[in-house]
């Protein structure tokens, strides 16, 4: 109850400040739209849409891209992380590469992806994939290397072959950290989706924001940001739920 009250209070306080700043008219509405204008935009876009698509359409398309890119990224990240953690030679060769990709800003390689893959869905999904993969790979690799040898030895004593160990022991032991990596990866995919939708991004929340920016429709921009943030928050809460469900022993073993 207290936590809910606290959060609600925080949101209300921020809204209050925003409203006060907008009402003071220090800056014109093109810079700081009023909460009321943004709210109206939210209703209008939900009903009549923007650039021919309703808000729900924009959001769903973006979420679909995030989901697809994250899923590919997570799957590849787990495989790469396992290999990085288990095979020293692989780590020596590809470890620096993963770090290299991880430090690149997504926009930097997006141009390259567009040259290679065109301007439709493939470069967008590829961008999200490249962005989401490293956090999972790094988390998985670290977790794999951190598995206590007693667990591996116990399993070997119980008849598990060297090929069985990664699946029967290493991955399940690493699961708590892998899931932390997944949360980070989905977050990164979220922050990247706007970049991915800068080119031919309508429908899509990022595309909508980009489009609105061109016509100085600041209320739409702010509304889009809020929608992205709120949906990201909701997804993270879902992921936390999933974490509790899948690794109830976290912090207790």
């Amino acid at each position: 109850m207290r936590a809910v009250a606290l959060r609600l209070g925080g949101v209300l306080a921020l809204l209050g400040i925003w409203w006060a700043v907008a009402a003071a008219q220090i800056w014109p509405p093109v810079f700081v739209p009023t909460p009321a204008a943004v709210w109206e935009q939210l209703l209008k876009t939900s009903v009549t849409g923007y650039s021919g698509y309703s808000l729900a359409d924009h959001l769903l398309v973006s979420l679909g891209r995030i989901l697809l890119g994250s899923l590919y990224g997570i799957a590849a990240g787990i495989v790469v992380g396992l290999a990085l953690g288990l095979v020293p030679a692989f780590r020596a060769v590809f470890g620096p590469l993963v770090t290299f990709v991880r430090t690149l800003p997504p926009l930097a390689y997006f141009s390259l992806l567009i040259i290679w893959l065109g301007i439709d869905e493939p470069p967008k999904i590829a961008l999200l994939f490249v962005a989401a993969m490293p956090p999972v790979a790094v988390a998985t690799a670290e977790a794999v290397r951190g598995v206590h040898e007693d667990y591996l030895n116990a399993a070997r004593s119980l008849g598990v072959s060297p090929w069985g160990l990664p699946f029967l022991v290493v991955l399940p032991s690493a699961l708590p950290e892998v899931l932390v990596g997944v949360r980070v990866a989905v977050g990164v995919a979220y922050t990247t989706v706007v970049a991915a939708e800068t080119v031919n991004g309508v429908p899509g929340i990022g595309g909508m924001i980009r489009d609105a920016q061109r016509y100085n429709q600041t209320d739409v921009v702010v509304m889009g940001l809020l929608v992205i943030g709120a949906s990201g928050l909701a997804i993270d809460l879902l992921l936390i739920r999933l974490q509790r469900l899948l690794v109830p022993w976290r912090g207790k073993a």
Partner: protein
Amino acid sequence: MPSPDSVALKGVTLTYGRKVHALDGIDLAIEPGEFVAIVGPSGCGKSTLLRLVAGFARPTGGEVRVGGEPVAGPGPDRGMVFQQPRLFPWLSVRRNVAFGIRRHPGRDARVAELLDLVGLADAARLRPYELSGGMQQRAAIARALAPDPGILLMDEPFAALDALTRERLQEELRRIWQQTGKTVLFVTHSVDEAVFLGTRVLVMSKRPGRIVLDLPHQPDLRETVSTAVRQAAV
């Protein structure tokens, strides 16, 4: 042909890195069905000795044989109980115990039997983190017993438990050993525990570990072992 449950070490040395001589020239022959209790000061190489027999590590010198064959790696003929329970946290107690017999036909009946043996029948569905320390250790023992290893290796399995639980588990272990007739290598810090459980007691010296006393169970063993342990520590 030596029995598959016999253990023999010949001139075994183990050096970690260049300088840490953990074991130095260990000669030891263990007959099937013996309950060998090993005591010695901290850091003298007791865990190292068990790890060698388990096949988790190889000696830098000498030879470790189980059932007459040189040890090439771990195997279900040797069950290991670690100082920490080391149960797999993602599996229920039942599935932990079943881990070593995943593909055996009579698995479920065997698991039920083992859980009864260690008094955990009611905890079968729980996850390890939902158990007390003593219950976890009992589950770990059941897990090690599942593939019916001829040899049981136990590294201070009761060290972290309170006195009452420890005594109960000692009784249980003795009962299990009497029922199954396994060969047991049991490492402990406690002279009382060694004398209570062991049919044979080994005392190791401080690093580099050597065997300084090797006696079968007999009257006055407690005194003799206590004296030897005290001397080994200096």
